[in-house]
């Protein structure tokens, strides 16, 4: 059993557990599963008097749980990678371990932050929670997540960039 846990988990175990996170979080805390709101929470806490209403007028007390939740995700990441893995997990390919890679990650991260907040959610809030609740704008968002992702992946392949 322990040996099975130490190996990467099969898709069906992973999928079921990802899905269970949605009702679990609802029942345990009354919150809808979503992660990118934590970016707004962090921004709002860092600059509570920001000129941008998006940060200044955000309800930091109501949003505090998002920060607690992502701290939990980081703890879970540590536990899984260092205590529950038989061999080291390769998160990023070797080609990213240089200055060029760092720039790509910052640019990609920027698109994630800007895009997720503009779209009103990310993979967790839109693709999983949204579609599970039959919220059609979330399906549209998910389709366009793939439009963007496919364009970049195939564009890079065809143009041989990076």
């Amino acid at each position, binding site marked *: 059993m322990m040996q099975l846990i130490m190996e990467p988990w099969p898709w069906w175990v992973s999928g079921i557990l990802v*899905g269970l996170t949605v009702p679990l979080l609802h029942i345990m805390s009354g919150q809808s*599963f979503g992660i990118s709101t934590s970016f707004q929470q962090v921004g709002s806490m860092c600059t509570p008097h920001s000129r941008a209403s998006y940060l200044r007028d955000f309800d930091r007390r109501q949003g505090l749980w998002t920060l607690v939740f992502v701290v939990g995700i980081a703890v879970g*990441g*540590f536990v*899984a990678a260092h205590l529950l893995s038989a061999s080291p*997990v390769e998160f990023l390919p070797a080609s990213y371990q240089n200055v060029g890679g760092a720039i790509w990650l910052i640019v990609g991260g920027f698109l994630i932050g800007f895009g997720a907040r503009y779209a009103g959610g990310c993979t967790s809030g839109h693709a999983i929670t949204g579609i599970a609740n039959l919220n059609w704008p979330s399906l549209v968002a998910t389709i366009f997540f793939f439009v963007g992702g496919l364009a970049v992946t195939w564009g890079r392949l065809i143009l041989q960039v990076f």
Partner: protein
Amino acid sequence: MPTTDSPAPATSADSATSANIAARAIPWAMYLRVLTVGTFFGIVLVKSEVVRWQRVHDMFLFKEAHMYLIISTGIVVAGIFMFLIKRCGVRTVSGEPIIYKPKPFHAGVVIGGTLFGAGWAITGACPGPIYAQVGAGVAMALCTLLGALAGTYAYAYAKPHLPH
């Protein structure tokens, strides 16, 4: 969406009432539960390997079904449970009704969604995996997180000028 546990409509069960009082006295109980679910999810993200750039890359290349299977299974399982929660009127542990607030449609769903997808493909991580990578000690993931916060600030300032 009261995050602090507000009193539920009076129930006959004494245990539920005392649980509410306890939850109000220690609001940290809710945060502790959130932290626990977060830790659980962080473990799942790493052990399922959805935190790996290669898995995301192979998904967009249609090279393997792993990610598609996980995401779709997750949606189906979450969907079944959300249906049951609504149908059976399941409440939170502190006795509040469970409500899903639908996300609205606007131009950002399309434009922001596309930009987000591009970022996902470049970094091999969506927001959850960014935090899981940082927690796992991946130094380069700090670049992704920094970028994401910068992107959030950019959106915060650009918001009044963007179509919604």
